[in-house]
């Protein structure tokens, strides 16, 4: 007779705080419910207060893993990118968020998970392990990742250097990377300001890129990061040149 196998939830004896911060996240009605409410609130606020405009929404793959990268100058960015997701992706696209910042206490973790479905990234302690976790999300559980290769919010809204971590993640794989440019988020809610201002935010999506041919070495990673930065710069130029006028 075949033996029955039980796989209990790893969250069995965990508090709500631990459930929010542990990763990979298990199906959990409390956390999913929180995220559901978060998406509704966030879309309402982005649509009214920030009059969000999305150009090229159809460039998001309807299924399978992908990486979404963009410029980072505001807390709004992750929420703006999460606004292009389809309902089936609401719980399966994770915004990579600094563990030391967004998971420092219960309130921040609650907000980060509700509004961006954040996954903790240990950028100070063990970034290598966190990168492996990201790779698992893409390759093993085949879910999506939202990532800001600049690593932190730009203080003046200008585009900083892209860190090679993104390259390590996708070089030599078939995972599509979708570059995006967010315009207006810095004006609406720059670093260091407590209250966001009602400014129009525009999100421009680029065409998906694949880096199967690039070797997964240090040089390859840097090349991927540079290529993606160029793609984001091009989106910015195209926005200033025409679409946004």
């Amino acid at each position, binding site marked *: 007779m075949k033996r029955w196998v039980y796989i*209990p*939830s790893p*969250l*069995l*004896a*965990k*508090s709500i705080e631990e459930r929010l911060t542990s990763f990979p996240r298990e*199906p959990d*009605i409390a956390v999913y419910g929180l995220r559901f409410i978060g998406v509704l609130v966030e879309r309402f606020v982005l649509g009214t207060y920030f009059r969000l405009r999305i150009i090229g929404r159809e460039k998001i793959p309807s299924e399978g893993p992908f990486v979404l990268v963009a410029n980072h100058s505001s807390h709004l960015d992750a929420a703006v990118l999460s606004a292009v997701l389809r309902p089936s992706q609401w719980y399966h696209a994770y915004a990579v968020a600094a563990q030391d910042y967004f998971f420092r206490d219960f309130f921040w973790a609650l907000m980060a998970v509700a509004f961006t479905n954040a996954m903790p990234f240990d950028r100070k302690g063990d970034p290598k392990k966190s990168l492996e976790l990201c790779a698992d999300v893409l390759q093993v559980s085949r879910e999506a990742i939202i990532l800001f290769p600049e690593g932190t919010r730009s203080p003046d809204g200008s585009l900083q250097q892209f860190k090679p971590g993104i390259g390590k993640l996708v070089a030599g794989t078939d995972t599509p990377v979708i570059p995006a440019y967010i315009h207006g988020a810095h004006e609406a809610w720059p670093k260091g300001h407590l209250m966001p201002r009602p400014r129009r935010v525009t999100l421009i999506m680029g065409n998906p890129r694949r880096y199967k041919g690039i070797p997964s070495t240090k040089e390859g990673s840097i090349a991927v990061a540079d290529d993606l930065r160029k793609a984001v710069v091009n989106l910015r130029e195209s926005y200033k040149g025409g679409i946004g006028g």
Partner: protein
Amino acid sequence: MSGSFQFAEPVYLVYAKIWIGLLAVGGLILGALRLFLGRGNPTVAAAWLTYRSWWIILPLMAVPLGLGRPAVILAVMALSLLCFKEFARATGLYRDWFFTGAVYLAILFLTYLVWIRWYGMFLVWPVYVIALAWMIPVLRNRTEGMIQKVSLSIVGFLYFGWFLGHLGYFANVKEGLAYLLFLTLAVSLNDIAAYTMGKLFGRSPLASNVSPRKTWEGAIGCVFVTGAVVWSLCPLLPGFGTLQKVLAALIVGVGGQFGDLVISVIKRDIGIKDMGSVFPGHGGMLDRFDSLIFVSPLFFHMVAHFTQIR
């Protein structure tokens, strides 16, 4: 049981006094033990944690009972849902939303049947749920691991939904308040008696594979203590003669301990220690309400047999 507030009912006040007295005595005993044996004593520390949780569990039971019929039915529904949720999480069934969703819906519909007092349908509802559970793999065109999932769903509904649902049906009975107050107190005291008697006299193991702490001495001592408790509480129950008293004592005293061990069987088979972490010192919902699940339908049908319960 009426739909209006029951806080001022004589029987409610009697039980309120008993509970407050018990909590006070328990607190004094534990406080004294803490003083003499020291806070570091692991047994006393664990008992203190369990005792403190009673201050949360008790209002959760007492307030719905005092609010009347609708609150009791809804509270039992919430209890069933939470107990099934823990079961689903422990067995891994929760990953399959079709089966867990079907059981949740079945529990909700069962609550509706209790609400509209459709007794016949309440009794045969498991037939339809079992049929529904077997339909799911067919409709989804799946075979892999389906016997297990269907079985887990059926057990989950029957044991946590339907068994506990009887507790809700007491709210439809004229003297339901007295029965419910009796059950909650007797079952809780039975748990405490089982623990205390085991600690004091426990020697020969009862079912060592299921629970190493359960002993024959503890179990028999517990039945006697519960018998005495039931005997002294029975004057508060309408229409209870000697036969009914003996049956009630056996159902609560023996059934309560079986309920405890049933959850142990589930946990041991899966290989986990606690079902959850809702109540510090107790574990999850199932660790706390294990005995009540087993006792509720047995007690209900005993009462239904001897009295005009509908």
